[in-house]
């Protein structure tokens, strides 16, 4: 009897404890919030920039319109915080993640973890350098947008002059794509001289400081500054205005409302409109479709960027174009 008992215990142990771990993880049971609605997470790289606030709020609002309880998580540009958010989201039984990555390479592991847990991730605006992790990536054509912006830059400066470039966060592909697109055009004009290039991490306050320093070193004869986003363009503009250098043309990228207003006032020369609302709505709609059973999504969906200048600024506002068929179709 004792022998049989021991054998049974051994068999059970073999079948459970000693077996290979299951490859398909069990989804947490709490997939429905206290409100009775299924939950969707919106993980955003930083909320310290109005553009990303609009991106996150729009994704949340669209998810709520579609019948979900949506929560925004702020990664504060920190991949460790982002990883912690993913842990919480996966443990919390969220059904999908609308994701604005902090780092094109550093964020891949988080997306893979979610995929392994059976939770789809829809990247918005920022790319991750993997095509087998996210369910879909809805991405601004940063390179193409900055090519167009570069062409306007050349035109506005008459093909000559000294300029400085303020780069974004170096770990993000967008920083490189924007700079590369801009230089693809501008470097073809030998009389346009870049006298300095410095990073300010997409941050307005840092860009203000960087611009102040650059003005001291390279202020004489400076004709323009190209910034990798509008927050930095605003910081640069503040520094230039404080120094009385309103002759220096400021170029940004994003299509932030404040930048568009300053373009209308002819204080900023141009920006690239990225359509954050269009991207965020599309991500929420994809997540809804996935939850309802759809599985075939394009891995990458490019969203064209349009150049906003004083000549066409009346067509733009509220983080998009005033007449945008894509927005009305998805609202």
């Amino acid at each position, binding site marked *: 009897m004792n022998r049989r008992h021991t054998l049974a215990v051994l068999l059970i142990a073999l079948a459970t404890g000693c077996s290979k771990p299951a490859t398909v993880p069990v989804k947490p049971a709490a997939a429905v919030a206290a409100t009775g609605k299924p939950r969707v997470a919106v993980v955003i790289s930083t909320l310290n920039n109005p553009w990303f606030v609009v991106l996150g709020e729009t994704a949340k609002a669209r998810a709520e319109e579609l019948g979900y309880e949506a929560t925004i998580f702020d990664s504060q540009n920190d991949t460790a915080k982002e990883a912690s958010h993913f842990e919480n989201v996966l443990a919390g039984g969220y059904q999908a993640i609308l994701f604005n990555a902090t780092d*094109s390479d550093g964020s891949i592991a988080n997306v893979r973890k979610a995929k392994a847990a059976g939770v789809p991730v829809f990247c918005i605006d920022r*790319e991750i*350098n*993997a*095509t087998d992790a996210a369910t879909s*990536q*809805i*991405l601004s*054509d*940063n*390179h*193409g947008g900055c*090519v*167009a912006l*570069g*062409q306007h830059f050349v035109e506005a400066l008459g093909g000559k002059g000294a300029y400085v470039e303020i780069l974004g966060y170096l770990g993000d*592909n967008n920083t*490189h*794509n924007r700079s*590369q*697109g801009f230089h*693809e*055009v501008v470097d*073809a004009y030998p009389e346009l001289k870049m006298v300095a290039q410095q990073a300010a991490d997409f941050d307005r306050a840092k860009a203000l400081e960087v611009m102040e320093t650059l003005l001291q070193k390279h202020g004489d004869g400076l004709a323009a500054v190209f910034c990798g986003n509008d927050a930095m363009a605003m910081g640069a503009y503040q520094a230039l205005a404080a120094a009385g250098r309103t002759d220096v043309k400021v170029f940004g990228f994003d299509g932030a409302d404040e930048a568009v207003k300053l373009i209308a006032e002819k204080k900023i020369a141009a920006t690239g409109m990225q*359509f954050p609302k*269009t*991207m965020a709505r*599309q991500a929420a709609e994809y997540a809804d479709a996935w939850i309802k059973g759809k599985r075939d999504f*394009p*891995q*990458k*969906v*490019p*969203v*064209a960027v*349009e150049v906003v200048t004083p000549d066409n600024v009346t067509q733009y506002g509220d983080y998009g*174009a005033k007449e*945008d*068929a*894509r927005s009305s179709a998805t609202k």
Partner: protein
Amino acid sequence: MPAAPSSRPFVVWLVRAVALAILAGLVWQVPLVRFKRLDEAAAPADAFDPKAFAERFWTDDLGPACGGANDVADVLAAVRRDPAAACRALGRSPGLSRTCLYLVRGSGTIAEVGPTACRVTIAGGQGDVELSMGLVFGTAIRDVTGTIDPASRTDSRELAAAAAEINRLVQERAIAPLKPVAAVGRALEFVACGQVQGTLPADKPWKLIPVRISVQNTPSASEGTAP
């Protein structure tokens, strides 16, 4: 009998010198630290080759697409009638773009030649178009065929580099042969790429980037390298 004390330091010195020379030779041949340029160090063996990618695109994608290009007069008429319907029927919008790309073919007569473009009065009515003779930028040519999947590369910077290479081929194979022979009154045939964002301006000719050019009624008729 022991060696003379005076010759011993010389032998030791000689042995050391030879040993040092051998060591120096070894370090030269098999260095402990090897210096490389940053771009060399960053490029893995299977690195993306934008030039090869552009050449393949030129031959395998753009060439066949040129054969199916729509008539420029038909496209212009359709865009003026209903831009959205024209895009659905005759063009393509990459992703969620508001910009529509068209690959068109046509013939006409050069009406004006400027430093960076020539204006062509096209056969079949619908007014004039402007063929670029300046620098080519952007992703229009890369995206007009619809044959490149944005997800075919994990890093979008690679496809951006490919677009720049494709533009270089356009510059070299379509624009360079056109520039020296472009003259008012000359007839030409072309295949070109055009973009429409919203509607076409009524007062300006449609700007096109040529990808295949054949200029006629000139003693040395020029023809771009067909994609």
